[in-house]
Each structure stands twice: as C-alpha cells, then as structure tokens.
C-alpha cells in the first residue's frame, strides 16, 4: 500500500472466479471488459457494507476511474480487479474520502425504478449496521465476495484467528436478528 492508500500491486488471486478482463495482447487486460465483468459484483459488496446503493455505485465508479487513470500500470497486473476492489474498499471505509465522492456524484440525482426493499433486506441491513466496521467488512467479504477466511485475513491484514472470531460473533449476533421469531413461524 502506498501513501495515498491505494495498493501498489494487483497480484493477489481473485476469489470471485468471475471473468476478469482476460489479458489480451502483450499480457495486458482490457479496461472495458474488466469494468463490465466486475462493476456490479464490487458494487453489490459495498452496497451491503454501506447500506446505500447510490453511495456504493459512486465509490465503485471512483475506484474504476482511478484504475483507468493509471491503466498503463494496472493493466499489467496479474489480477487488476483485485487492485480495483482494494481501492473501492479503501474508499468505502474512509468516510472523509467517501463523502467527497458522494457530494460530487450526488449532484446528478438519479432515482432507480426499483421495488421497495423487502423486509428481509431491511432486516439484513439493520443487522449489518449493528456490527462495527471491521467485522462488517469481514462478513461482507466472506459471504458476498466468497472469500475464504485466509483471504479475508490477507485482505484486511489481520490474523485468520481474528477473522474467525469476527465471523463467529457476527453469525451469533446477526443470526439472532435474522432468525424469524417463534410467533412468525407459527403464523407461517
């Protein structure tokens, strides 16, 4: 990681197993393909973490803009999407950086014609919001980015024991909040 908080390499393996903007001529990746293949999955993770779809989109777009800005370097990495994902998470976990992006992007107000969030969604977001930021990030990386404990530990630069502990506590805390009550089960 450099002083600007952006990763200096993108050589980590990509656990999502999705298309990754396969390298073309001279081993370089194609930005358009990378963007098309990964924008939604990165945004989905940040959506769960931040609880705000628009903000998640803005942060992900900013991460891709930064990748494009230095595409000559980033395209040469084994796994450029790992770089983008890392930048996106850095932005999402820094309120100061995130708020600057949000202010700039929110001027162009957009409203998606989406259905009201389901009660399950509301419950999930409320439960996630009850977790401190770091355990919340670990939960999202594990359950949405499909990262194994060891990968979460590497991403977050903590021990696997810490991640296991976070996940264990989160499962208990969130499980209680997400489990239907006995009354609801009876009614069902």
């Amino acid at each position, binding site marked *: 990681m450099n002083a600007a908080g952006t990763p200096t390499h993108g050589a980590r393996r990509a656990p999502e197993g999705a298309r990754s903007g396969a390298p073309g001529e001279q081993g370089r990746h194609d930005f358009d393909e990378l963007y098309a293949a990964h924008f939604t999955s990165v945004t989905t993770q940040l959506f769960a973490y931040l609880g705000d779809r628009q903000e998640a989109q803005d942060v992900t777009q900013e991460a891709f803009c930064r990748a494009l*800005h230095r595409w000559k370097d980033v395209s040469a990495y084994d796994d450029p999407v790992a770089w983008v994902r890392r930048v996106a998470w850095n932005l999402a976990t820094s309120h100061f950086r995130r708020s600057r992006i949000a202010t700039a992007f929110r001027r162009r107000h*957009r409203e998606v014609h989406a259905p009201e969030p389901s009660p399950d969604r509301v419950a999930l977001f409320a439960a996630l919001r009850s977790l401190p930021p770091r355990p919340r990030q670990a939960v999202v990386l594990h359950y949405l980015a*499909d990262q194994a404990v060891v990968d979460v530990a590497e991403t977050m630069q903590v021990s696997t024991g810490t991640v296991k502990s976070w996940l264990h506590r989160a499962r208990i805390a*969130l499980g209680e909040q997400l489990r239907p009550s006995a009354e609801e089960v009876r009614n069902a």
Partner: protein
Amino acid sequence: MPEQMEHEPLAEAFFQFRMQAPDEIVVPGVPVARRTVRRRRTARVSAVAALTALVLAVGGYSATLLGAPAPVQPAVPSASPSPTVFAGPALNADQLRQLGVKALDRLGFTPERLRRGVAFGPVDAAAGGSTHLLGTAAQPLPAGRYTLVAVCRGVGRITVDWRTDDDEGTMDAPCTDPPADGNVDSPAARAEVQLRAPGLITLSVTGDGLARSRAGFAAMVTDPLMAIADYALARPSGDHVGGVSMVIDRTEIDTDPDAKAGIYVLTLTCAGTGTIKATLRVGEAGSTRTVRCSERPSPITITVTAKRAATRKVIFDRRPEDPAVAVAYYLVTR
C-alpha cells in the same frame, strides 16, 4: 468459498441479497469513467500552471521582504467554530447555519448551488418549529410523484410534517454528526409525496427539546424535471429489467453485460427543452431515436430483438452545452 457447515440464516439472507441487488444497481459505464479521467487530467494541468504562477508570485513577494523581521500576527479566533455539539447550551446563529449547510452537503448541494425544491436552515428554538415552502406561487412544483428526503445534523431529532393540497404526512429524522471513519451515516428520512396538480409542498420542521437551537436540517424533493419525466412515463407489461429517472447534461449510458436473448422494449420520456438521442443496443441489434424534450412529454418506445445473449446498453446523448434535461425510462423484456 465461505465455510458453510449448516443452514444459516445469515448465509440465506446474503444469498437473497446477492440475487436481488444486481437488478437495482445502475452501471454508469466506461464512457463516463473516461470522461471523468479526462476532465481530471485537464484540471490537473490547469492546477499545476496556477500553482507555478503562485509560487513565482510568492517568491517575488518574499524577496522584497527578505531581511525585514516578520510581523507577529495576533492569534485570530476561528471565524467558524466547530458546530459539533453533544447537547449543552444553545448554539449561535452562525453555528446553526453551519449545521444546516452540513445537512445540505449530505444532499449534494451548497448554499450557492441550490435548485427548486430544496430547503435548509436551523432547527428553530420555537416549540412550533419553522415553515418552509418547496416551490413558489410563481413557479409551483409540477404534478408528479416526488421523493421527499430530510436530513439533520447536530443532536436530538426533528419531525418534518409535509402538506400538499390533497395529502399530508409526517416523518422523523435523527440529528447526527457525520460518522467517523468507516461508520455508516444514519439513514435519511424519506417519504413519497404525490402532487396531482401543480402546487406547493409545505414543510413544518420541529425539533425535540434537544434539537431546538442545537441542530440544522436540509430537505429536498426529487428534481421537478425528473418528476415530470417520471409522471409522463408509461410502464409497459413484461419482465422489468431496468429503469431510472435522471437529470442528464451529457451522454449517459446504462450497461448490463449479461442481457439474455429476447425482445426488449424501452419506453422513455424527456422533460425540459431541446432534444436527446436515445439508443437501445443489445449486442449487434440496436435502434436510435431522436426524442423531443418538453414540459409535457409523451412516452416514446424503442423495440430491439436480440437473438443471443449480449451486452445491453441504454444510451442517452445530450450536448454538454445544452441545458440539462430529465429522462425517465423503463425497460422490459418479453
């Protein structure tokens, strides 16, 4: 892969979320990213030139002072003391205004850059609160469906009562400081407000005992142009695969890289003045129409048949020098 040993409510909740969320995500598109990067590069070159000029100017100024003792400046109290409070005494007018500006900032506006349908200010000391009008008699809000959003900075809670000619409602918002690093901001209060005819929305903002004179608020409704475009939009039957209302001032692209084969029907309206070019493209198949924007837009339809799965793009072209317009679209597949 996550290590799932047994049925877990958490895993199931995330599974559901993973299935639903992608349908709601709007992809700004590569052209938007390229434009942003291009603009930043241009700005950076200008900034370097300005900085160079400044350094030269300061250098010259310093040279004239060289050898003279530096004047001692008395300490000047900050002109804008931090408005962050944790209850305690009432704040002065400047501090309250700053909290209002902070709330406004969360909505993406500044006092210098406002639009119709936005209000902000201090949470009044009076128990009866303060009243604000969205829209004016000369320029009422057009008929349409609006989302009213209210946020509050400071302490305590506010109640926002809204009223139109036909309807009224109320909502609560907590007054908070911006969150520390990594924490989630408290959610903004939202309400759907329908104006059946052009008119005003009256807001009455009341703070609880803690918020009065210790908080600032901001509220806004959907951009009126968006409400016009959205109101005029017809939503055809079929499987809904996308739709957005947005204000555009240049080319906008929404992309879905995994569109299935099928017949796609795009219905859209454009509110404002002038024209835009609307394109629906699925792989090789595509169609473009020029759409006239007006204060009373009519829906137009573009139909494209995709014989195989491909990337789908909805593109709206607007010349950057033209005033912004609002576009609402609804996309279904059959």
